């Protein structure tokens, strides 16, 4: 029975052999202490791995994973938002297309921020993935995903409190979205993207996407867009406060 290979021994330890072959291996093991010991160690390794990691199966599921794995909730909202803004799906945000052209990128930026606002600001149950009660974790996580340290502006003076944040797919990588809300339930989002191409800095700019106002600017490696469904003049005060805190 010299035709028993090491691969057979592994397959035996893992329970992956056909019955006939399994019996042949067993016969060999009866006379081979070394092989028997190997099989014992491998099985022990398998059991130890399961003992160590099986508890993960019962851990509470983070909301961000549920959202990432659930198609139904995502698409209708995207569609809705796109519809509300009168957009076509071909603009790159849905398709997550990669663009090399910096000028397109800059023009598309406030647009994507507005779409993201339209998608998540109306959300009642899950406007954010991680709530403001875990602000430290939130900032750490999003900073890690964007590969850049992020700051969260404080807008209390403007009447807005942080609700939380989420990670979104951008055209050139992950994007962070922070959401704020005032006492009346009015929401503002700050959309932060890592600059891939285009100019290094821009001045404060304004864009209107239907009834959503967007102030945006690029500061070094990060692009910021502040969006809300409110008139330009009202958003300006908040945007100025954000700009001063983030790009002093």
């Amino acid at each position, binding site marked *: 029975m010299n035709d028993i290979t*090491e*691969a057979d021994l*592994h*397959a035996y330890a*893992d329970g*992956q052999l056909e019955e006939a072959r399994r019996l042949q291996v067993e016969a060999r093991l009866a006379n081979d202490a070394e092989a028997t010991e190997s099989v014992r*160690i*491998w099985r022990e*390794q*398998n059991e*130890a*791995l*399961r*003992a*160590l*990691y*099986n508890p*993960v*199966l019962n*851990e509470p*599921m*983070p909301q*961000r*994973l*549920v959202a*990432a*794995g*659930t*198609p*139904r909730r*995502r698409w209708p909202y995207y569609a809705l938002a796109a519809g509300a803004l009168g957009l076509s799906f071909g603009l790159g945000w849905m398709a*997550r297309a990669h663009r090399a052209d910096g000028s397109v990128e800059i023009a598309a930026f406030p647009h994507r921020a507005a779409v993201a606002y339209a998608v998540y600001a109306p959300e009642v149950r899950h406007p954010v993935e991680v709530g403001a009660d875990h602000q430290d974790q939130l900032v750490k*996580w999003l900073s*890690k*995903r964007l*590969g850049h340290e992020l700051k969260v502006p404080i807008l209390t003076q403007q009447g807005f409190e942080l609700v939380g944040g989420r*990670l979104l*797919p951008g055209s050139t990588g992950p994007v962070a979205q922070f959401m704020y809300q005032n006492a009346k339930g009015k929401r503002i989002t700050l959309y932060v993207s890592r600059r891939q191409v285009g100019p290094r800095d821009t001045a404060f700019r304004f864009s209107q996407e239907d009834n959503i106002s967007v102030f945006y600017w690029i500061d070094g490696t990060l692009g910021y867009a502040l969006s809300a469904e409110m008139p330009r003049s009202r958003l300006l005060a908040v945007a100025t406060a954000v700009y001063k805190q983030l790009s002093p």
Partner: protein
Amino acid sequence: MDSTEIAAHIPRLRRYARALAGDSDRADDLVQDTLERALAKFHLWRRGSDMRAWMFAIMHNVFINQLKQRRELALDEAAEARLEGAPRSDSLELRDLDAALKRLPAEQREVLLLVGLEQLSYSEAGQALNVPVGTVMSRLSRGRERLRVLMSGAAPATNLKLVK
């Protein structure tokens, strides 16, 4: 079966990712990227084929990409590791296993986990990693041997005492 089926795999993807990536934040990032990709590429999944192996294949690709990126961030990570050095409450042996796993080359760790933890067949593991079964077997063999040596690495002190 449709794309809603994907969510059902999350717990097991998390288990595998935790063992593969080490810390839980990074593991969940890996799962999240995998899920997003799986949904985006769902039309590419062959109906009737094993969805789990398909999702492990996606996770493999994401993991490899993250490893490449991480090499560039290695300096940051080292600093971070020093901050996160607090001991965990697992038993000593299990902690040793966790530490030993991290010292295996990623390609051996993947095979060991897909086979030993996730109980994929060798051919499913090969499918997930996009390598022939022969490669699965050689990585499995080397990984198991290396793990054995690493796990017994704590023992020599005892042996020395016996000699004395």
